[in-house]
């Protein structure tokens, strides 16, 4: 493969071309040209970008490649510290310490990805990383994304992260920590997954109030040891909220309520086996998406909680519900009596099914309750994504159902579809 590199090479090539022996000489010439370092043209910044998806151990090992590569790892702006390539957690800890202490502390560090599935002997390696971040001024000012997955590791230095002025994304998985409020002003995204938090005795737990710029919050499968009655999510800029499998003292505590102060919320997802009591002082007028995936008990308590949640999330345009909700609603239609439809501007509605089965029948009363409040929501098609035959819904039946709804006002011909979606767990 010859590329134009100016006239010089062409001439040289022509000169060396001799029939018979030519292939050898030409080969040598080509070989010589091909021996150029292909990466020499790439500035360090680009090499760093390439290495940003490779784990730190490999990056450090690349210091044997050539002179240029010898110290390249010391200025990496992205550190992927994973224990998967270490046979021994002790080696891994030692490695982490080595990398941090030999790193050029005057260069920016933007991303730290730490993943440890092994039992960390000392449990301090995470704290030592946070210490490094907060003790090294260049790093404190430049860190943007911190992701820590440390199985059962107790992390004590989380509060120190408030010193980081540029930290926008924090992802904590499987750690154990004290439930101190996150005071990171620059934080935009916070993901807490599989974590255990030790809370005090306070009645109201508010962890996010000081993250004034928080946009996205995801709480998945977190466990809070404590006696609080109210879990407050105070985040005036929040647009995305996802809560799933929240546990208090390892149980679903139905006495606990979740207070939302999230006036700008656009997306809300909830997934669990039961429904907490939600409350919100203000209407969530910006809400676009509302997803609920619960396997409801066949009793009215959870259903009532759910209906209250619907009231809060009434402005949603795109609603997805799990089929068990429809089933339980169908079982206790009396609960829907006297209640006007919570959704006022429904645009799209989906049902999530865990297993492929015959399409769910939505009784008229439930339909009226769900769709009656949205002017212009017109029942178009009932489509089962994974089945061949598309059974057409009966428009007359729908009309009849809607007429039960006191507030239904059929106007406009906005074509909206009712889709049955197969949800892959």
């Amino acid at each position, binding site marked *: 493969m010859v590329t134009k590199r100016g006239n010089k090479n062409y001439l040289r090539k022509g000169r060396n071309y001799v029939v018979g022996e030519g292939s050898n000489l030409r080969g040598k010439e080509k070989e010589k040209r091909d021996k150029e370092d292909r990466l020499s043209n790439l500035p360090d910044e680009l090499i760093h970008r390439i290495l940003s998806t490779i784990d730190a151990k490999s990056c450090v*090992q690349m210091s*044997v490649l*050539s002179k240029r590569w010898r110290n390249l790892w010391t200025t990496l*702006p992205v550190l992927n510290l994973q224990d998967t390539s270490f046979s021994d957690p002790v080696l891994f800890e030692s490695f982490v*310490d080595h990398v941090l202490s030999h790193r050029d502390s005057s260069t920016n560090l933007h991303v730290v*990805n730490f993943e440890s599935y092994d039992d960390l002997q000392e449990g301090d390696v995470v704290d*030592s990383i946070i210490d490094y971040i907060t003790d090294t001024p260049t790093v404190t000012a430049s860190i943007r994304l911190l992701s820590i997955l440390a199985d*059962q590791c107790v992390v004590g230095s989380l509060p120190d992260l408030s010193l980081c002025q540029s930290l926008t994304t924090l992802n904590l998985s499987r750690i154990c920590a004290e439930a101190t409020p996150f005071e990171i002003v620059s934080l935009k995204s916070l993901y807490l997954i599989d974590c255990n938090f030790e809370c005090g005795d306070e009645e109201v737990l508010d962890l996010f109030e000081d993250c004034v710029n928080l946009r996205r919050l995801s709480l998945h499968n977190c466990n809070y040891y404590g006696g609080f009655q109210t879990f407050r999510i105070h985040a005036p800029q929040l647009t995305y909220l996802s809560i799933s499998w929240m546990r208090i003292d390892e149980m679903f505590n139905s006495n606990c309520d979740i207070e939302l102060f999230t006036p700008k919320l656009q997306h809300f997802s909830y997934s669990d086996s039961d429904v907490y009591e939600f409350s919100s002082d203000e209407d969530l007028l910006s809400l676009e998406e509302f997803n609920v995936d619960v396997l409801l008990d066949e009793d009215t308590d959870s259903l009532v909680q759910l209906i209250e949640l619907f009231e809060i999330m009434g402005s949603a345009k795109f609603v997805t519900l799990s089929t068990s909700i429809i089933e339980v609603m169908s079982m206790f239609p009396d609960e829907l009596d006297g209640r006007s439809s919570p959704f006022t501007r429904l645009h799209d509605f989906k049902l999530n099914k865990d297993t492929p089965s015959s399409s769910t029948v939505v009784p008229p009363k439930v339909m009226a309750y769900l769709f009656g409040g949205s002017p212009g929501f017109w029942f178009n098609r009932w489509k089962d994504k994974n089945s061949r035959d598309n059974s057409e819904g009966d428009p007359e039946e729908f009309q009849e159902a809607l007429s039960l709804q006191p507030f239904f006002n059929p106007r406009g011909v906005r074509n909206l579809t009712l889709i049955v979606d197969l949800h892959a767990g």
Partner: protein
Amino acid sequence: MSDAAMEVVKPEMKSYIWLQTADGSIQQVEEEVAMFCPMICQEVLQTGMGFSKAYAISLPQRVNPAILGLILDYCRFHLVSGRSNKEHKTFDEKFIRMDIKKLCELTSAADSLQLKPLVDLTSRALARIIEGKSPEEIRETFHLPDDLTEEEKLEPLRNITDDPHIRLLNRLYARKRKELKERKKLKDVEVEEEPKDERSVEDLLSFINGADGDTKEARTNKNKKKNRRRKDHSKDLSSKNAHENDTELNPLPCSYHNGNFDNALEASASKHSRMQNLPAVNFSPKFEFIDGDIDDDLDPAMKEELDREVEDFARRLNSDWPERMQILSLGQDRRLLPISMNSNGSTHMYTSFDQR
């Protein structure tokens, strides 16, 4: 100058930009395609050039005509709106299939034209090529010069002070550093100098007890030490509890992995793949002892040596952390130039603008 050329005479007539590559050849490219490259766009808008052959935009040196062709193909596809993500991805996957030499050139050229999406694509492709390879393979693939001495290769991470036991002691170093930092009292008596220092601080405290300023730091350090100790104590307990309860606690099967959160940042750090076992340099020997018993399992001869080494460390560790960093970096062969990551970081790497 070029206003006439800018006017669209007929609806079907396109506007063209003239581009000149380093070898002198000039070609014309549809305006929308050319403007897809930020560097070209910037040039056109700032200088007003590019609308005639005589005033062609000079492209950076790293862009040769063949590579330019590839880049323009990429632009041509991606500027069309309305395509699904899948279509874009499929195109990218096919597009990136080329020999490594070309891939490197493409990366370099895309970088000089500031075409970020293409830089990301090619960088990731190069990363996939690099990882999983041994150093020899990498050197071969990219024709890197094998210019390090054998010794340099064997000890890539050797401490500058050339301490032969550096690796073995790294763990001790880590623990001791933290302990000394917090002025925590050590259980082991091996580090003889440390208690002396401790006492002197406490002596100081007793002398100037109650006075502000000087003692504040010492006092807060002491408080910190107390808190840490308490915390460590409870930490040990809770971690023990965690172990005991491990079988009882049933974490729900969902395991949200890193891919869950958004790629707001350039480094799509969530999607790195796991490293295979690299047969390359092993810079840490296998430790055969466990944490708490670390000192007991070593044979006495080693222990003596360790004592001496740790003393050496202790002396070093007594200085402050930033000073310590300086000590470590003193005498380093190479002065590392800080690489600043500002948004214009890429521009001052090129000499292309000198061509104007």
